[in-house]
């Protein structure tokens, strides 16, 4: 059922860019809650997929300034799933066909919690939908290599769930490790 949702959204995304010569990025990623390290990203990973595109404010021989637009989904067992729409501004430094980049952005995260939710109703609590929205700040770095019209890359990205508030934390931090490709479609 999750795949059906992703397929539906992917199709819609493809339709919206139909006929345009813009890059399409597709990444598979591992997600975990926590500090900016690699713990929890490899053993029993929580998997996700992200599809996006990018536009160029500057597209020079040695560097690019880009604006990305992404839609992504991840499934974190026993905690939540997240469907998001995000956009980032990024700077990419090119060294021949090798490149490094950094991005900063934000988006809307639609969380579906595995922890049932209840709201006060009179003297009691009643169950409410376990799907809710959150602002999603993002910060990422990546590296990759271009083969003509195809690039392969890896990205490490942190994102938050805001507002949060438990134990006075302003955001619940998540980390993701992506492996992906960028196709420059004609």
């Amino acid at each position, binding site marked *: *059922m999750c795949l059906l949702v992703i397929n539906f959204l992917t199709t819609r995304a493809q339709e919206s860019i139909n006929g345009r010569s813009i890059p399409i990025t597709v990444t598979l990623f591992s997600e975990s809650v926590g500090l900016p390290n690699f*713990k929890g990203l490899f053993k029993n990973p929580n998997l996700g997929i992200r599809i996006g595109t990018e536009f160029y404010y500057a597209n020079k021989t040695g560097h690019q300034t880009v604006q990305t637009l992404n839609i992504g989904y991840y499934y974190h067992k026993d905690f939540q799933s997240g469907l998001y729409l995000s956009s980032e501004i990024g700077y990419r430094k090119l060294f021949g066909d090798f490149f490094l980049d950094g991005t900063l952005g934000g988006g809307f995260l639609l969380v579906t919690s595995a922890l049932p939710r*209840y*709201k006060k109703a009179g003297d009691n*609590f009643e*169950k409410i939908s376990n*799907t809710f929205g959150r602002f999603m700040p993002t910060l990422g770095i990546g590296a990759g290599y271009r083969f003509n019209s195809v690039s392969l890359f890896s990205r490490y990205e942190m994102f938050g769930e805001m507002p949060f*508030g438990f134990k006075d934390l302003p955001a619940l931090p998540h980390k993701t490790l992506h492996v992906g490709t960028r196709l420059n479609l004609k």
Partner: protein
Amino acid sequence: MKNLMTGKIVLLLLSACVQEIENIKPDYAEDIRFDDHPKNQVYTNGLVTYQNNTSAPGSILLIDKPQETLWIGAVGKSNLEYQVNLRTNNLVRTGSVTKMFTAVVIMKLVEEGKLSLETTLASVLPSMNSHIPSANEITIRHLLAHLSGIVDPLNESLQYQADLINNPSRVYNKTIDNLLEEYVYGKDLRFKPGTAYSYSNSNYWILGKIVETITGNTIQREMEEKIFLPLGMNDTWLEKRDDKNVSRGYVDLYSNGVLQDVTTWDRAEGSDRAASGLISTADDLRKFMRGLFSGALVSLPTVAQMKTIQLPDCNSFDCEYGLGLEIWRTDAGTAYGHNGSLVGLEINVLWYEDNEAISVLYKNNGNFSDKSWLSQLIK
């Protein structure tokens, strides 16, 4: 209209993508009521106000005064999914209240001459020499009184807290050795042992290991033989045992007035460990407090030691801690006992010196609460 329908379908599909955590329907067992108690209305009013003020799905209050008959009240729900009422004899997780039990087991071993309060950690667990700094200076007394300086992953380590969220089953399945290796070993002490106070669950994880090393039995079995059986605590255990009738835990995770069921997190931290794993009932906790402070478990001189603040120059409320006992200055006089909290619950168990009353106050919302109102009922 079409967009609204599409949105609803997407939400429905998203909900179907996530499997909610398991919640087995509890028994709708009969409650034991104390409605005929002369102060039933006064006590119930206090309890209902507390439940409302703390936005707890349910709350239990026990008051046992020598000059009165026992009263226990319960309001609200133990399980919101099935709308099951919280009962006066409901099983509840007790969090750090467990530390009193572990301390009693240690003090009994001291009375039996198998251990001394000045025994060093390194002498009883030699392997600690290579894992914990100054293990040859840290004593049993330091561990019991939180004077060791050993770090506390549960309250200090963001990595531990992230691990709990990421995979509570994995945290649940970790042994004490796993926990110590992952979060404690190799970390610097916060201060030189014996010179300051810093609350740490690690102290009681290690005390559990010490009990097992000295006796050759599990901490669970020692607690059962030394405490539960002699006092007739028939609804109390420390071992890993899933019971659908244990009250579930809730917390306002996003600080937006919405409670989420975090029982899997409480299960991970609140099972089988010498620092926070006890499951019990209000009345069994009463039996423990009455037994401890009457000298039925350890001698009264030992109880007096347990009640004594251990940090020599303690000059603030924060360091008023004995040997496994917190010291509370209340309007009803000095009280001894322990507070317990997990992500989804809070419990407070006290014995009041002036009138030898006992209170047990529980709620299944993990937020911090003001309990000063309780003194008026105890006086």
